[in-house]
Structures are given as structure tokens and as C-alpha cells.
């Protein structure tokens, strides 16, 4: 990490826009300007500049499928670490019902204001057939409206009207909070941590993109072990993790 920081400091001293391709995987700091590949080859004044606003590593993903010949569609993003969640449309989150007022529930999702959830936004809910949701329940849902100007709104059904696993999360279990980066790491395809966890004992996990994880296992002790392991995963190296898992598997 110190090497990457030194490189970043050097380039900042020059303070000119760097090509995004050369910076991939390195730490970028807020205020840096990046050039996209198109702007390199063709000298063009778009007037749009790409400024970095968060510090972290620059990542890139090629567009999959490759149907468009021009290669448009690649995604660049900054992989940063933060604990505070900002509601984003389409994200699946775990929320806690804090209030029930009239036709809507107020759900705390860890953002700046509670999200609203209509009682009709559950599978099979009608005006007569209300869902069984109490204050203090855990809800797994997704945002339909989430921008800086409006109160976030979430629902527990998808666009076809099916629940797809969303709705009230069952009894028991433990809810705890981790950083957003860890959630993304755990939900990445081929995540080793999850595969190893799954071999230990039967368990159920729900991941919310707002940094909240809910776990449930057969006994309270197992549940607590899970919670501790997941929270510690952030700061452990792969070797330490394997040691801990092997110790757990033995006991």
C-alpha cells in the first residue's frame, strides 16, 4: 500500500490528467483527473472531465457480450471503503421497521432518512389482505426510488409482482453491521469465505447492501461464531482465515 501511495503522490505533483488504463488497480485520490481511452486517440474537446471524488483503487470491467463493435459500455469505478450507506435504486437492503403510519411503514435502512414501504408492496397483499408486519421486524427489500432529492421508497416485490425472497425475514437470528466493501467482497462470485462457511454447519445468511448482515444457525453459539467470523474477515489475511476455519471445523 505504501508503494501505491508514493506513486499517487508523484503523479499528483505533476497534476495532469492520466490515462485511466494506466491507473487501473492503483490508488486514486479525490481531485485527480482521468482520461478515457477514446479521448486519448481522438483529440476532442468534450468539455466533460472525469474527476475522482473518492479515494480508493480504480477498477475496470470490460463490457460483456461485445455486441457493439465500438467497445462502448466498459465500466470504471473506484473501489473505496465506507461504512455509511447511501440509498441507491435497485439495491437489496435489510431494513428495520420503525413505525407504522396509515398505509406505509417507515423502515430504517441506515441512510440519512427512513425509507417508506407501502403495505401493498408485498406479494399477495391487497387492501383487505394486509401483510403481517410489526414494528421491529426485519425486512429484505429493494429500492424503487432513491435519489438525493426525495425520500427513499422500497418495495418487497419485483417488477413481475413476485416476492423472490424479499419480505419479512423470519424469527431468531442475529443482525450486525459491517462495512460496505466487505459485503461486496462476500457477494462476489466465487467467494472463498462463503464456501468455507457453508461447509461448517447448516446456516442461513441474508446480505443487505447497506452493510447489514443477518445470520441464523441452529444454536445461539453457532450464530455468534458466524457473526464474529464475518466481522473479523475484513482485517484478516487469507492464511489467518484458513487457520480459524480449520480450528472451527475441528471443534
Amino acid at each position, binding site marked *: 500500500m505504501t508503494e501505491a501511495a508514493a506513486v499517487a503522490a508523484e503523479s499528483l505533483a505533476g497534476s495532469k490528467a492520466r490515462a485511466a488504463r494506466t491507473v487501473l488497480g492503483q490508488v486514486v485520490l479525490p481531485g485527480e483527473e482521468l482520461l478515457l481511452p477514446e479521448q486519448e486517440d481522438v483529440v476532442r474537446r468534450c468539455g466533460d472531465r472525469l474527476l475522482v471524488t473518492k479515494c480508493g483503487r480504480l477498477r475496470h470491467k470490460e463490457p460483456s457480450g461485445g455486441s457493439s463493435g465500438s467497445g462502448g459500455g466498459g465500466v470504471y469505478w473506484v473501489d473505496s471503503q465506507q461504512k455509511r450507506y447511501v440509498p441507491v435504486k*435497485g439495491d437489496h437492503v435489510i431494513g428495520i421497521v420503525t413505525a407504522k403510519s396509515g398505509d406505509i411503514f417507515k423502515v430504517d435502512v441506515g441512510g440519512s432518512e427512513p425509507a417508506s414501504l407501502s403495505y401493498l408492496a408485498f406479494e399477495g397483499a391487497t387492501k383487505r389482505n394486509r401483510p403481517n408486519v410489526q414494528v421491529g421486524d426485519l425486512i429484505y427489500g429493494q429500492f424503487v426510488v432513491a435519489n438525493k432529492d426525495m425520500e427513499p421508497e422500497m418495495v418487497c416485490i419485483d417488477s413481475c409482482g413476485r416476492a423472490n425472497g424479499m419480505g419479512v425475514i423470519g424469527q431468531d437470528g442475529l443482525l450486525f453491521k459491517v462495512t460496505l466493501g466487505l459485503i461486496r467482497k462476500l457477494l462476489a462470485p466465487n467467494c472463498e469465505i462463503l464456501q468455507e462457511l*457453508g461447509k461448517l454447519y447448516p446456516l442461513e*445468511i441474508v446480505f443487505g447492501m447497506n452493510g447489514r448482515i443477518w445470520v441464523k444457525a441452529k444454536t445461539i453459539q453457532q450464530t455468534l461464531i458466524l457473526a464474529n467470523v464475518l466481522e473479523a474477515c475484513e482485517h484478516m489475511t487469507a492464511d489467518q482465515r484458513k487457520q480459524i476455519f480449520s480450528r472451527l471445523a475441528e471443534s
Partner: protein
Amino acid sequence: MTWFMQRGLDSETKKQLEEEEKKIISEEHWYLDLPELKEKESFIIEEQSFLLCEDLLYGRMSFRGFNPEVEKLMIQMNSKNKAEEVEDETVELDVSDEEMARRYETLVGTIGKKFVKKRDRANYEEDENGDVQPVKTKKMFLKPQD
């Protein structure tokens, strides 16, 4: 209804008055006195969500059979993400073929009951072996023998 729509006014005067009204209204409209801005082509789209960036798995998971419904969901949702078409493409039947055949067997009889008159209904109840057979013998008028 403005005042020029009164009866008695000629159609010509009406038109003139309409045009005058429109002029007054359009002059009062505000407009920007700026030169036309060219729309800049931008190849950059800003996205807030991480869903496009990383192929994330579905958030609910269950291991070793703790919650079978969630395990079914896991397979469903993760295969949707990867867009792998199921090679078999067999539609899962809710009701098996045999059950359907059995249902249809009895269905004929139960629907047939609808069109049977009250007197014949008694015959249905006699045949209760699980199969309901429609009545074949129809009661005719018997001539009294002398």
C-alpha cells in the same frame, strides 16, 4: 369564454379579436435571450449503483439445507444473473400427467351432474365407487296394463 365569443359578433371580428389576444399572450411569455447551446456528446454515463460494476450474487443464502426455499431461490436467481439457459428446458409441472388424467376422468361425471334433472340425481349417489357414471336408463311413461 372570453368576451369576443359573444353571439352577434361576426366571425371575422371574432377571428381578429382572437389573433389580438394571442399576440398579447405570446408577448408576455418569457424567453431566454441566449445563443443556442450546442448539445455536447458525452460518452460518460454516471451510475450510482454497484450492480453494473460487479457481478454480485443474490443476497439471501442458505447452506446445508437450513432453509430449502432459500436454496431454491439461490439457484434461480444466480442462474438468472449468469443468463445460462437450462439445457433441459423441461417446464416443471405442478401437477403430474397422471394426476391430470385422473382428474379429467372424474371431471366428466361431475360436470355431467349439472345437466341432470333432480329426479335422476338419486341414481348418481348409488354408483359411488369413486366413479360417477352418468345415467343411461331414462324413465319412460309406463302404460298401465289393463
